[in-house]
């Protein structure tokens, strides 16, 4: 008996003195299903960030491990994925990529004491809360307000037809509401046009509905693919009508599928593609080599989120929690600029107003 107890003590002592375990960071996003490109871009951005960090020596000389889980935009799968990650005792989770999944995943992460750093969740309801969710992008309200302000003042738009997708309604309706409130407060008028996104959607009909209301501009609160289609159809009828969309549309797909129809479209972008920031160019190069694509906002935001997590983990002292470190030990270097989280874990990074020029996203200054 005594010998057994002694052995146990010895093992415990050895365990206590054992070298620290390598840091584990989880990623959760939709890698299959409808918005797989968002999830993929997020995962790729996180991967680049982790690999860069490991090349620079990792934490305590040990490489960081990225553990990827797919939520498939499905609540059940998301719950299983986050439980899995919590069980593996990851230091933090980069993700989820959509607000719908954040609804499902946050309570579990909160209970498990794991920090979530979401690159692309922007729904208003997640902001201003003292919880385990850290947000890299600004909320829909801020973006919508910015948009409303820009178009009202800059482009003298007074009447906007807002085509919004009902399939992602919690997000699109939130955006629409925020925009409507802001635009109406300024004195404008918003005509909502709802539709259900599908591959065989009646794009013509929807566009006709929108144009029937004689708007000064058409707002597209849709995916990039749908936005490209709508743009094509609008342009076919109204070649000069102002088109603008929210951040979600700001991907290469829009340009690929929109062709010339999307020239001049006003968007929001998380980063300035033309920026000379060394980190951004390095990221675009690494991403392009690795994945033969542009990172897009999801990739860059995920990169920034992951870097913030890793930096915070490296900078924290003693028994400081990662959550405290993220809140206190910023700013964290992102691809283009720095990232700082306030006491609610919000970074409030305001996106750039961007316009499509010659098939590229160019920031308007």
């Amino acid at each position, binding site marked *: 008996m005594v010998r057994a107890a002694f052995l146990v003590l010895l093992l415990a002592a050895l365990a206590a003195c054992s070298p620290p375990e390598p840091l584990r960071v989880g990623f959760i996003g939709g890698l299959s299903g409808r918005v797989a490109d968002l999830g993929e871009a997020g995962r790729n951005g996180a991967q680049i960030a982790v690999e860069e960090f490991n090349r620079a020596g990792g934490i305590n000389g040990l490489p960081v491990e990225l553990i990827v889980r797919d939520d498939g935009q499905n609540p059940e799968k998301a719950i299983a994925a986050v439980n899995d990650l919590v069980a593996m005792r990851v230091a933090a989770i980069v993700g989820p990529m959509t607000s719908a999944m954040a609804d499902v995943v946050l309570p579990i992460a909160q209970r498990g004491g794991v920090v979530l750093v979401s690159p692309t969740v922007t729904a208003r309801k997640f902001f201003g809360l003292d919880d385990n969710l850290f947000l890299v992008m600004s909320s829909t309200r801020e973006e919508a307000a910015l948009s409303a302000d820009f178009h009202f003042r800059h482009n003298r738009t007074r009447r906007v037809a807002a085509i919004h997708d009902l399939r992602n309604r919690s997000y699109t309706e939130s955006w629409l509401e925020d925009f409507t409130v802001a635009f109406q407060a300024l004195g404008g008028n918003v005509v909502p046009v709802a539709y259900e996104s599908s591959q065989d959607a009646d794009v013509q009909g929807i566009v006709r509905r929108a144009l029937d209301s004689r708007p000064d501009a058409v707002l597209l609160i849709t995916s990039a693919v749908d936005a490209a289609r709508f743009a094509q159809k609008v342009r076919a009828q109204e070649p000069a009508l102002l088109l603008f969309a929210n951040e979600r549309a700001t991907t290469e797909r829009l340009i690929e599928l929109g062709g010339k129809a999307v020239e001049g479209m006003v968007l929001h972008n998380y980063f300035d593609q033309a920026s000379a920031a060394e980190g951004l160019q390095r990221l675009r190069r690494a991403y392009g080599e690795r994945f033969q*694509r542009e990172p897009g906002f999801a990739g860059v935001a995920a990169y920034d989120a992951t870097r913030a997590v890793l930096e915070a983990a490296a900078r924290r002292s003693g028994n400081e929690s990662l959550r405290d470190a993220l809140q206190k030990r910023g700013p964290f270097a992102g691809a283009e600029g720095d990232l700082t989280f306030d006491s609610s874990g919000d970074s409030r990074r305001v996106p750039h107003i961007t316009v499509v020029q010659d098939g590229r996203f160019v920031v308007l200054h």
Partner: protein
Amino acid sequence: MRLPGGWMASGEWRLRTSLVVLLVVATVVTFGVIAAGVLAWRVPAALAEDAARMRSEAVRLAHHLEQLLSGLEGRLGALAGLDAELPPEQGRRLLDAVVAEGGFQAVYLLGRDGRVEHVALPPGWTNAQASLQGADLSRNPLFSAARHLDRRIWSDRYLSALTGESTVGLAIPFADHVLLGEVAPDFAQYAIGSGAEGRANPVLVVDRAGEYVAGRNLAESDRLRNWAADLRDLPATADGGDGAVRQLGFAGVLHDTGIARSGKLDWTFMVAVPAGLANPQVRATVAIVFGGFLASMLLALVLAPLWASRMSSPLRAMIAETRALTTGKFGGGITRGPIREFNQLATDMETMAEAIRERQSELRQSEARLRQSLQNVRQLNLELEERVERRTADLAHANDELSAAMETLKMAQTELVRSEKLASLGSIVGGVAHELNTPIGNGVMAVSTLHDEVGSFRGEIAKGLRRAALDAFVDRVERGSEIALRNLKRANELIASFKQVAVDQTSVQRRRFRLGEVVDEILLTLQPTMRRTPYKVRARIPAGVEMDSYPGPLGQVLTNLLNNALTHGFEGRRHGLIEIVAEPLGDDRVCLTVTDDGSGIPPALADRVFDPFVTSKLGRGGSGLGLHIVWSTVTAVLGGSISFTSEAGHGTTFRVIVPLVAPRQPAAG
């Protein structure tokens, strides 16, 4: 034999046990060797086979894909060729027909500016048709590349204008147009599905960036991860050719993976089979081998006892029958069995049994004879005993008579001794009386004469006293009293001597003393006498001889012996030596020897020398009592014994043996 753990294995095993063990061990070892050989040969072979199979599978899949793509390309190419010549309406109908054939989910006819002049879609896409018609696809990278390079291009990153999803696209430029074909998104899955059916092997297709395109029997983690690192530095054979084999991890298990690349889309096909022990074939082989091993062992364990029994049963029968022999049951033969050596043994056993039987009968006969002689001996024995009894009875009778005679003799001896004693005493008394008679008689005579003289003097006085008569009277009185005195003195001396003889034993003093001291005392008292003589006395007494005895008598003894030597032994000699030696005898006695080199004791006196009044100087001063007193003292007082040896002319040795502790004398009553 000592085994570890302190077990003692006895050197003996039952035959059956050792046969069983032999058979089992032989089986096990044989199978073990064979199994090892089979495994060593078969396992690597199986693994190599599987790896080769995987490689050819992968190559086949890649080839299959290429064929499909070539097919599609062919169709679209043909279309492109035809379209150039046909009127637009027919061209469009052909486009629709191509899509209707399947394979393409959409085909676009794009003008030089990238606008969609016509799009052929599968049935049911009415709205899409309307929305895509006239759409601007000028920014589509595939279109741009085809237009720019003016050749057919495949892309696996083609973003479908119809679905918005990434799929495979083919662009064929011709004349002023570009035909853009969108392959159905599940095309890749279809390609590997139709190619690799039935098996449970993981199949994986990844694009040039190492991202999952399609696959089967894969774990989710394998679908989600990037494979570029695993596919780095593939040999050239991977591109078309024979493919390559590498060990990659699928679902955490190492697999032998056949790898082949398709050139058109730069996709990598992987077909994998578990490597090492996880490989099902290997497992099966190992299982079979082990199964066989176990089966053979079980079979051996079952058969071996049976066979061993069969082998050892004739031996057992033989043992039983031999045992019967040992108990004397002859006549039964020994059963034969299938083993020659045992049969030989049986024959020899039977021969031996015969020999034993003969010997036994011989033994029985001699036993009978022996019994007979034993009987005789017993008879003789009885007779002898009778004789002995009789002789014994006679002897006992004779013994009784002898005892009686002995008793009589003893009594006679005692009588004799007594009468001797009486005689001796009588002779002593006679001697004493005789001896005393003379001096006392003389004394009486002298005094009587004196008495007469006195009477006559008185008479003289009456007549008138003359001086001459007075002088004569005084002279006569003087003479007479001298004679009387001398004789009375002599009588006194004699009486003193006699007193010595009748030693009053109870008044003699007993004490502890050292022999040496007593001897020295005696020698001291003799010294004055010795000084006047030319003779020498030497004593050798060991120091530690302690006695609890009567020193006075002992001294007397010694004195008398010394005196004897001086007066008798050395008479007429000019020199002489007396040696006194004491020698302890055992723990309780001492031997005192007085040796002189005098004239010795005459043989005529030797027998009587200790008797009273025996002297060689009778009438010349010796009383003849000296040695008698010595003898009496030694035997009666000191409790010892005395003997002597003498050689006439050479000397005499008296040997006195006395106990160290003298016997207690009963008080004289």
